[in-house]
């Protein structure tokens, strides 16, 4: 069965599959029940699976993650929704000090298969705290897996793989792409899907490697098309997994192209781009024609929405980054 689904709907379908195939799977969060979430990602699920499996919680993010940990200790597989990126911070302690460390602390006795879904990033004209990119808080935290989906087809399988994972997964959803449609194959078994810890080449190319994840993958693909007109062949890679990074896929590409640009919405300073730059430089030192360059958010808070188009890396800024790597 294939058909065009929005990214939001694809996650909804993925959640439905997970709820159907394992009765330990639960959904928890604010407004995930009757409302179906503010982005409708959980639409209809409470109606079909009941209030015990799709749980509207009190308004407390630490409470959501903390009780999800307890439920996981009891054998459940909770999928927590954090309503917006900026509201994950009250849950930091439970995620960083408890969720991420429990397996290690218990010498492997405890598994916490908790998935934390976070609609992240900007571009929807929202008020403050609704456009954050907090991924580095989690990628820097050992014990978590951090992944970001970029389109409906990917989202459908990735959410299911995340829920299947025995490790806690931070699952980032590019909220401004929720309404983007793509062909989703819901028939092929999950076992055939690309594993959660692999990156994927979205646009093949030879001159420069362009790495991104989440909402900017589409922008990067568009940049590759634009660059082609200028006679430049850009290879675009959707990282998919931020922790771990799929270094073999990345290094193979950069060894071939000799140039690399990383784009993300999160501030450049301390962002994933730095980590990638360090690793790529070490792995591909003799093949690099230019330093790895980064295009990303500035070292400012996320600005008022009327300025976000300037804050967010767009086609032009990404191409500018690509251009600059050819100045070396």
């Amino acid at each position: 069965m294939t058909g065009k689904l929005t990214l939001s709907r694809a996650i909804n379908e993925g959640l439905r599959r997970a709820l159907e195939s394992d009765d330990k799977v639960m959904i928890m969060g604010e407004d995930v029940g009757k409302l179906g979430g503010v982005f409708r990602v959980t639409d209809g699920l409470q109606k079909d699976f009941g209030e015990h499996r799709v749980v509207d919680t009190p308004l407390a993010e630490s409470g959501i993650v903390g009780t999800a940990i307890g439920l996981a200790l009891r054998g459940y597989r909770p999928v927590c929704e954090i309503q917006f990126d900026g509201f994950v911070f009250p849950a930091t302690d439970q995620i960083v000090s408890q969720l991420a460390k429990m397996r290690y602390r218990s010498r492997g006795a405890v598994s916490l298969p908790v998935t934390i879904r976070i609609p992240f990033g900007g571009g929807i004209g929202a008020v403050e705290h609704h456009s954050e990119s907090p991924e580095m808080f989690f990628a820097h935290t050992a014990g978590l897996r951090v992944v970001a989906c970029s389109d409906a087809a990917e989202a459908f399988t990735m959410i299911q793989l995340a829920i299947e994972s025995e490790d806690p997964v931070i699952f980032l959803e590019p909220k401004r792409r929720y309404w983007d449609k793509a062909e989703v194959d819901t028939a092929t078994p999950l076992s055939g899907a690309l594993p959660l810890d692999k990156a994927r080449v979205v646009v093949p190319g030879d001159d420069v490697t362009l790495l991104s994840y989440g909402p900017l993958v589409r922008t990067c693909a568009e940049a590759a098309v634009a660059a082609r007109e200028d006679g430049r062949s850009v290879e675009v890679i959707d990282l998919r997994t931020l922790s771990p990074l799929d270094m073999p896929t990345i290094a193979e590409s950069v060894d071939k192209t000799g140039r690399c640009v990383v784009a993300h919405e999160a501030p450049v300073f301390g962002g994933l781009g730095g980590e990638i730059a360090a690793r790529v430089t070490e792995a591909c030192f003799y093949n690099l024609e230019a330093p790895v360059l980064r295009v990303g958010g500035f070292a400012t808070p996320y600005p008022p929405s009327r300025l976000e188009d300037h804050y967010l890396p767009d086609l032009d800024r990404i191409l500018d980054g690509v251009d600059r790597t050819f100045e070396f």
Partner: protein
Amino acid sequence: MTDSELIQLLTPEGERLAHPMYPLDDSEVDLKGLYRDMTLVRRVDTEAISLQRQGELGIWASLLGQEAAQIGSGRALAPADMAFPSYREHGVAWCRGLEPEKLIELFRGVSHSGWDPAERKFHLYTIVIGDQTLHATGYAMGIQRDGADDEAVIVYFGDGATSQGDVSEAFNFASVFNAPVVFFCQNNQWAISESNERQTRVPLYQRASGFGFPGVRVDGNDVLACYAVTRQALRAAREGQGPSLIEAFTYRMGAHTTTDDPTRYRIASELETWKLKDPIERVRVYLARSGQADSGFFEKISAEADELGARIREACRAMPDPAPLSLFDHVYAGSHAILDAERERFAAYLDSFESEGASR
């Protein structure tokens, strides 16, 4: 909850009551002024909603139904008192003299909150649920240290917010330090789609006693009761009696915000019931019936509202987008080399378009 728990001075039918613990004489309060305030902020609200529909605002959080809670408490503030709002306190903002245009800016996406809280005695809107309760408590601790016994603090938050750890921590700090802060919870029965029973199984005002300070439930649609109860709580705070919690029992008559669709989660009849308890209507009835106002008064207010609406509409449409480089302003007080370099590079990048023309 028994009815006797709910403090009320003006019934939905416009009947004036007395309450032994909250004596309030009509002469102590400018009821026509309160009517005017409520009517005008409701107009601000209506106007903002339609501006959002027209694409002028990104979003708007409506206060419809909560005018009495906000105006009653807001007018009970002394000029020196400090108020910490959530994101729906347009009525309190009004009482503090903040131009509605300032709020419009925020929801338009032109600024995050473009006023000086110290000057306005009105803090920035706070969107992260509950965070401001700690700021208010800390501010009140500052008042104590200043020995300023003519000042108190009020902090606004919703029923949903009471579930946040920060709010409990604020209750506890305020109690332990006996800080002069009034916790004003507008229980509008809903936190987006979640009804009260998702947040508590006992009336919210009772939360206070477990932290060692008084809590009271007031009819949040009764502007006089809100005024009287808040005035007394602030006075107690200023007199060194410490914090208290006011639960204003009200109802969110509109959607959570303009992006919300309440038909998905609540039944229409609930709204009908609450329409009968409208906070403005009961004041109109009482003013008219008691002969304190005639139709001329009501017409004048209505005309004033029309004018205000027009003013806001125009001001909103005229608001320019901020300059691109302003996005780098006010991150730090001093220079910050990393940020400064980014600003410089971005300025050069923007310039390159100017000089190139539309080269790409």
